[in-house]
């Protein structure tokens, strides 16, 4: 593969991911507002926000780790997006999808979070640190059912590669959510937690402005982080779609599928009240774990 | 029951009884002096057993005194008429050893009496467990 080709596709994919992700965020704000009987901001509001953050002149500098934190986030987000196959069969959008697999993706995710946590830590804001500890605790809750679902899928299809999974689904014209329903259910249940949305939003605690990991970031840092967050969100959605819903062969189809999943996340978030961290962990280790175990049994028996 | 059997029962019985009495005194008497006496009795019993075992019916003491030699003429004949000398020699040793032990025991009793102001063995129990 040509290196320039690769660079180009990477830039295109990143841009697309950025645009889609930010738009999704706007849509979410709108939907949430509507559900709460508010008018809500326009859908493009998040673009404006990011633009505003980037154009801010002054910058609060807390130290090296604080400076680097957004970079960890965005490096992680873009790399994951590049690894997750977005377009099945497309040579151009292949990116790095043959150079990584599910385990790598799973392990890349904390890369950004660790960077953010370190940056947060250096600011000295205790509330931010509390947010980080909540987030990490919740990670234990959400990761285990999710990884179990993924392992069930991996073992069932004898592959750890996402690309392979997409290929298998495309070739057999089936979606894993139908062939491995329990794995799908388990993953679906923990999905809101992975987006820090729904009942699992105690980490960022959007209602309490002062706390949450990102409260000490402003200006260009926050802008970078928001961009990274939106790209990361899209990457995660794509991953979910790739694994369970057959991936896609064109961007439109991908947007439909990812948006459906995202809609589900938004809906759950609107319906469910926020949980405390330990409640969240217990809930995540409730039904999702049962589903995951059922998925294992399914793999073991069939 | 022959004469010999009666003698046998008497001597063995007496000796073993002495040993038993000695042991009994050692094990049950509270007084240190009595315990030492018990030890002595025990020794006596053992010594008596030795002598008893060394005895051979109708034979004389193992001394080749002129009178004995005169009676039996040869040493060999005299030797045939004598009891076993070995147990007697052993008893001599045993008695002396018994004496030594008793002396030491009595000395210890004195020490104990000085130290504890009692001869009751039950009260002398500084060392235990």
């Amino acid at each position, binding site marked *: 593969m040509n290196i320039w080709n690769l660079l180009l596709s990477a830039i295109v994919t990143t841009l697309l991911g950025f645009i889609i992700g930010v738009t999704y965020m706007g849509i979410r704000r709108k939907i949430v507002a509507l559900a709460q009987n508010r008018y809500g901001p326009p859908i493009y509001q998040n673009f404006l926000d990011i633009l505003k953050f980037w154009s801010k002149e002054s910058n609060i500098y807390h130290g090296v780790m604080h400076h680097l934190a957004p970079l960890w986030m965005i490096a992680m987000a873009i790399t994951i997006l590049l690894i997750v196959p977005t377009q099945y069969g497309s040579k151009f959008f292949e990116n790095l999808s043959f150079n990584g697999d599910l385990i790598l993706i799973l392990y890349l995710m904390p890369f950004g979070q660790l960077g953010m946590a370190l940056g947060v830590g250096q600011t000295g804001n205790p509330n931010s640190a509390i947010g980080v500890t909540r987030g990490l605790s919740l990670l234990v809750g959400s990761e285990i059912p999710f990884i179990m679902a993924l392992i069930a899928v991996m073992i069932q299809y004898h592959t750890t590669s996402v690309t392979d999974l997409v290929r298998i689904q495309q070739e057999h014209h089936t979606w894993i959510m139908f062939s491995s329903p329990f794995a799908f259910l388990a993953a679906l249940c923990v999905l809101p937690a992975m987006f820090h949305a729904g009942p699992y939003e105690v980490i960022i605690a959007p209602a309490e402005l002062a706390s949450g990991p990102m409260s000490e970031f402003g200006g260009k840092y926050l802008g970078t982080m928001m961009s990274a967050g939106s790209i990361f969100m899209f990457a995660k959605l794509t991953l979910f779609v790739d694994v369970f819903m057959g991936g896609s062969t064109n961007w439109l189809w991908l947007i439909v599928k990812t948006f459906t999943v995202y809609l589900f996340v938004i809906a759950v978030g609107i319906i469910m009240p926020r949980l405390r961290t330990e409640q969240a*962990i217990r809930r995540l280790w409730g039904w999702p774990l049962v589903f995951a175990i059922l998925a294992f049994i399914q793999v073991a028996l069939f | 029951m022959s004469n010999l059997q009666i003698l046998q029962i008497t001597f063995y019985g007496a000796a073993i009884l002495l040993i038993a009495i000695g042991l009994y005194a050692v094990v049950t008497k509270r007084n240190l002096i009595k315990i030492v006496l018990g030890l002595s009795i025990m020794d006596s019993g053992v010594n008596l057993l030795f002598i008893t075992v060394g005895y051979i019916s109708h034979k004389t003491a193992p001394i080749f005194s002129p009178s004995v030699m005169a009676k039996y003429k040869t040493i060999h004949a005299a030797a045939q008429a004598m009891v076993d000398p070995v147990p007697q020699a052993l008893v001599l040793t045993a008695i002396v050893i018994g004496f030594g032990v008793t002396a030491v025991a009595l000395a210890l009793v004195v020490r104990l009496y000085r130290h504890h102001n009692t001869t009751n063995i039950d009260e002398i129990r500084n060392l235990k467990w």
Partner: protein
Amino acid sequence: MNTLVVLLLILFGGGIIAYFAYNIHKIVGDIWLVLVGFAASIYYIGYLDVSQVLNIHLAGFVLTLALNSFSWIFGLLIAVLLPLVALYSIPYMKGQDRLGWFYMLFLFSVGGMYGILMAGDWLTLFIFWEIMTWSSYLIVIYRRSEDAPRVGLKYLIFSAIGAYSLLTAIVLIGANVHSLSISKFFEVLPMHSLGFKVLVGSLMLIGFGVKAAVMPLHVWAPDAYSTTPMNYTSMFSGALSKMGIYGIGLIVINLYYHSGISLAGEIVAWFGAITAVLATYYALIQKDAKRLMAWSSVAQLGYIVAGLGIGTKLSVFAGIYLAVLHGLFKANLFMAIGAVERQAGTTNFSELRALIRKMPWTFFSALISVIVLAGIPPLSGFVGKWMLYESMITSGHYVIVVFLFLASVAGFLYAFRFLFGVFLGQEEKEFEHVKEANPFMTVPMLLIALFLIVLGTFPGIMFKYIARSMADLGFYGVTYKMSVLTNDWGQSINMQYIAASLVIVFVLFLIVLTWVAYKNSRNVTTKDIHTSGEPPSEEDNYHFSENFYRPFQRAFAFVYKYAITPVYNEFARGIEDFFQYVRRLYTGNAQTYALYVLLFLAILFLIAKNIH
């Protein structure tokens, strides 16, 4: 002259001379120590003739010294650590008394480790094992701190349990195989009965498991690791614990997989997995950096044991790789903690605050090590984790892999706990005077950190040796590439691309962000923060360190409810009480004793008919 003997002589003789050298003057001793460290290291890497075998006839046994490529790799780990730790020790141990004693034991224990690795027969292995044990025990109690006796005794008791089961196994081998040679033993083992195999194997595993801190036998480890001076702990956790791993590797692979009891390997793997999970859980509630890292060591060793227990080609590969890696990064972490201890005077999370600006290099090396520990790409830790998980998934051990994942995810918690507790958070006046550690301390740490970074993208550097040692364990034809990892199903990842992507994006944005933000940046203190409009005053400190993971603790309260230590304590107390009662047999009354004699005699009289 046999090069193996020369190496041992360098270490043991160097140890004895070090004692006297330090008694002459500290500087003489320091120079000697570094000299010995480098000499041993260079000699090992450069001059050691692996093919040499030495047989010593002693006391009716043949003691064999022979190195193979499996043990060589562990020796390499020691050889890398030894000079670095020696350098690090110079400033770290400044001002301590009895340095000669300390370093003598230090070098003895290193010599013991090399002896273990060189052992060609079980007796040699055991002798050096015990030398290593007692020298490390004496180092554990070296500081004479308040709880040193308790910790030392605990370490010693568990070491003895291990050593004794090892010894039992060895004598059983001696009696049944009629040879103590290790290779001979593995050769003839398949011919022996299942019972023998299981018995000897379990005993050996208990023996090695103690040093590898496998779960029910781990009790000593957190205390011992945290009580010992940190420069030794880095060897202790980094290299000495690997001796247990070395033994487990030998046993599991040879005993179970080459003589057909794979179930036992599964059990070992399970022990490792459970150790990993529980130790991680305990690590994240610790209040002291040393103890946290000590528990973390236990957890990490659990992974390695699990990897070796699974026993497929990839998992063993991963196990060995992780073992070497753990030796490096855990040594580095303990060195960092030692540096903090030395500079700031404490390692307690509730006292330490925000040392990042004071000790940036220490922070950097600690950060790298923590990233490696957490297994986050693109650093080397991930490579090991990836191979481990893939090997388990591909071989169908999906329950164990979930446990390991759980441990790994929870591992992020304590990793952050450590970094935050020591280096981050609000600054405190108390630590204003703190300076970066002596270059002798930071340079070894940074060297290790650098190596760990490089190893992430180019793990092939290490794979070369591991592949060679795999052949020694009976896994032939192990292939490897410089930076492409392949699992048993044929899927692969390319670390170069991943690292490149991460680095490019990172650097790109770094340039942009720095360019854009640098000019108007306003440097602020950690007190200048946004706390709901109530910025803390200079006197207040809002550092967050108590009950760090309280939600987590609440959620997993059921795990923390049970612990093995009280069980051991109760058992020990039971034994003591029993004998407290029994000793009343000796009433102190002479007549009672006399009665015993009579009773004994009477009993013998009673059974007289049975004596023939």
